[in-house]
């Protein structure tokens, strides 16, 4: 299988990149995972309940084993989570767990999480991969994690290659392949050619729609798509500058023709987005979208004080940082062209992944083009827009509110929505989505489909709408 960029870490406690998280899910699954409707379903646990609103209890499956043969018990779960809570590890997940007061191993197969106040969304965060106690307590990032997943590492991971083999002691069916090698190929043409030549068998995501025609006609390959829960968006830096003005943000939002981009650039393999959640999500509520309306955009820019145009015809200069990924770059250029039409000159700055993520976390940008690989938990809204989630030195730059957005009413809504039970949550999130459409903490673009290419040697692949690699657990290797 090919991926486009190297996994930043295989330790699920530390991985931030999509490649890192998805590969680590194959090696170290967690207590639960998510179905295509974004509902939590048990994974290593066999069941979970909320005995009261401040406690969630998991019952582990019997006879779970780690790759090294040892048993997976509540003690390992406790150790894994406690290691994340320890600030010395520097895990980016620590912020998500700050409601946890105590992790209790009630008995060999039961774990209880005690919270300081009601916090339903925690369930989604508890899907983190479970490590054996020894590895969890090592105090540093684990380079070669041992887990209870369907695949285990057959060799120490290198920068560009991760070699996996099926784990014979897996608690469900063992994958029916001989080995799974995950290789990093940064160049898209090389990825596609590897598929065409038969040197690679799988590609999940990591393919621009423009190159699809080259793949579709090949007899030994098939293209499988599924609607995705990921969101491509632009995040404006609200700390200062023109993007701090909501009218400017709204103008930018109306200046982008999402439908045209989806049809023409993405070959129809996406859905224009109105907010963070896709329409298939249980908490989705319709909110007024940013229709393509350049006239309105220009009027808003006039109102915001940018009526005067310079000698180059431009009224406003902004910079957009993006990664060096080819598709993101060309999309940024499309946005550049569309903004030019309303008098905004956009300088596109493609940056290497490491540099890009650092700049984004540090607030070193005016506009940044980003993508949530999958939006599962509606509480992501709080993690992304609440005022206490701004990455700062004090919190080690964790926190997903990279634009430093602050809105009192939204804060209150999202805080409350995290505390109440599911029935009420949907109503609150509906209100939140309307508010978000008004104040525009981010400029939502579209939800991209998950596009996978599989060779004829692979049978049984059913894509996950989240772009996860977990479906690989069920594939079977056949001779062509």
């Amino acid at each position, binding site marked *: 299988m090919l991926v486009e960029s190297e996994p930043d870490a295989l330790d699920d406690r530390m991985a931030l990149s999509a490649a890192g998280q998805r590969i680590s899910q194959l090696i170290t699954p967690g207590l639960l995972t998510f179905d295509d409707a974004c509902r939590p379903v048990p994974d290593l646990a066999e069941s979970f309940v909320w005995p009261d609103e401040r406690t969630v209890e998991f019952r582990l499956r019997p006879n779970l084993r780690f790759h090294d043969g040892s048993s997976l018990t509540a003690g390992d779960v406790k150790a894994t989570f406690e290691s994340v809570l320890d600030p010395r590890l520097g895990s980016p997940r620590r912020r998500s767990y700050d409601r946890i007061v105590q992790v209790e191993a009630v008995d060999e197969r039961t774990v209880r999480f005690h919270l300081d106040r009601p916090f339903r969304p925690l369930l989604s965060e508890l899907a983190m991969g479970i490590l054996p106690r020894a590895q969890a307590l090592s105090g540093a990032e684990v380079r070669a994690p041992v887990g209870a997943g369907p695949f285990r590492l057959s060799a120490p991971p290198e920068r560009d290659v991760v070699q996996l083999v099926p784990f014979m002691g897996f608690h469900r069916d063992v994958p029916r392949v001989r080995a799974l090698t995950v290789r990093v190929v940064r160049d*898209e*043409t090389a990825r*596609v*050619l590897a598929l065409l030549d038969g040197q690679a068998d799988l590609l999940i995501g990591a393919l621009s729609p*423009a*190159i699809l*025609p*080259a793949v579709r006609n090949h007899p030994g390959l098939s293209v499988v798509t599924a609607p995705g829960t990921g969101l491509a968006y632009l995040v404006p830096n609200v700390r200062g500058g023109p993007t701090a003005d909501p009218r400017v943000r709204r103008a930018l939002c109306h200046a982008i023709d999402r439908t*045209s*981009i989806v*049809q*023409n*650039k993405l070959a129809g393999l996406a859905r224009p987005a109105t907010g963070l959640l896709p329409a298939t999500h249980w908490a989705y509520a319709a909110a007024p979208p940013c229709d393509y309306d350049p006239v309105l955009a220009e009027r808003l820019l006039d109102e915001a004080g940018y009526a005067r145009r310079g000698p180059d015809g431009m009224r406003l200069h902004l910079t957009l940082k993006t990664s060096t990924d*080819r598709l993101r*770059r*060309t999309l*940024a*250029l*499309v946005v*550049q*062209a*569309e903004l*030019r039409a309303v008098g905004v000159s956009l*300088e*596109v*700055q*493609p940056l290497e992944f490491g540099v890009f993520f650092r700049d984004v976390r540090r607030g070193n940008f005016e506009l940044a083009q980003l993508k949530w690989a999958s939006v599962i938990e509606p509480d992501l809204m709080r993690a992304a827009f609440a005022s206490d989630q701004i990455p700062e030195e004090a919190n080690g730059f964790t926190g997903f509110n990279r634009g430093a957005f602050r809105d009192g009413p939204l804060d209150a809504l999202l805080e409350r929505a995290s505390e109440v039970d599911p029935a009420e949550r949907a109503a609150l999130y509906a209100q939140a989505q309307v508010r978000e459409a008004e104040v525009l903490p981010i400029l939502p673009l579209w939800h991209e489909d998950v596009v996978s290419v599989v060779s004829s040697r692979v049978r049984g692949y059913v894509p996950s709408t989240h772009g996860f690699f977990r479906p690989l657990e069920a594939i079977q290797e056949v001779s062509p």
Partner: protein
Amino acid sequence: MSGLARLYRRLGPAGRGGALVAAAWLLLSLVGPWLSPVDPQAIDLPRELQPPGTGHWLGAGENGVDVLAQLLSGARVSLVVSLGSVVAAAALGVLVGAVAGLSGGALEELLMRAVDVVLAFPGLLLAIFISSVLGPSLRNVVLALTFSGWTGYARLSRAQVRWLLSREYVSAARALGASPLRIALRHLLPNAAGPLLVQATFGIPAAILAEASLSFLGLGAPPGTPSWGALIDQGAQYLLVAPHVALFPGLCLAATVLGLNLLGDALRDALAPGQG
């Protein structure tokens, strides 16, 4: 003008071909962008990466940009950058060389050592290094190419100055109180003009190629700026489905560089000592 005509006649067929190419390039760079039917940066999403045909005579590139329009604008970019850097390099080099030749002694040694240091860098590497520190922009490309390209002019001008100084009539003029500037203008420039011109005629295609290489590496023109090198870089991503995007700018680049090199060759032969 008759001098130019005479010069043209002295060029061989290859040289004349090169002169024609150079003229075409000059013309297209200056006038082309006005002739082009569309804005080179205008996107046309429905026709992204389409092969040459109606609407896009040389085909469309990424996001539907018109390849022909980009080629014409790219010609202008190559003109500005190459002429800019060659003129700046020549000015800098001639100045350094003249100062070295005139002062002699330790200063001359020092300046010539500086020349050696710059020449010690393999090919494009110094320009890449400078661009990487300064950041991607056309202005920085001109700066980088100037600082890696001035050495030839310096050596030329120093040799000319030394030769001049050895002439009797010059030392006589100096003894009579003529200022170095006057000497330079009356004697240095006319003599050096020939070799300088030849040097520049080779320097321009080298600069065009260097700018294109830097843009290809992502160190030259900022994203979205039409440049032949950037266009080839873009085209290299779509070889599977749209090879025309890389083909045409490359042909332009090769033809221009070839033509200018041939012109330089012929000029050097035509202006060889004894005829200049």
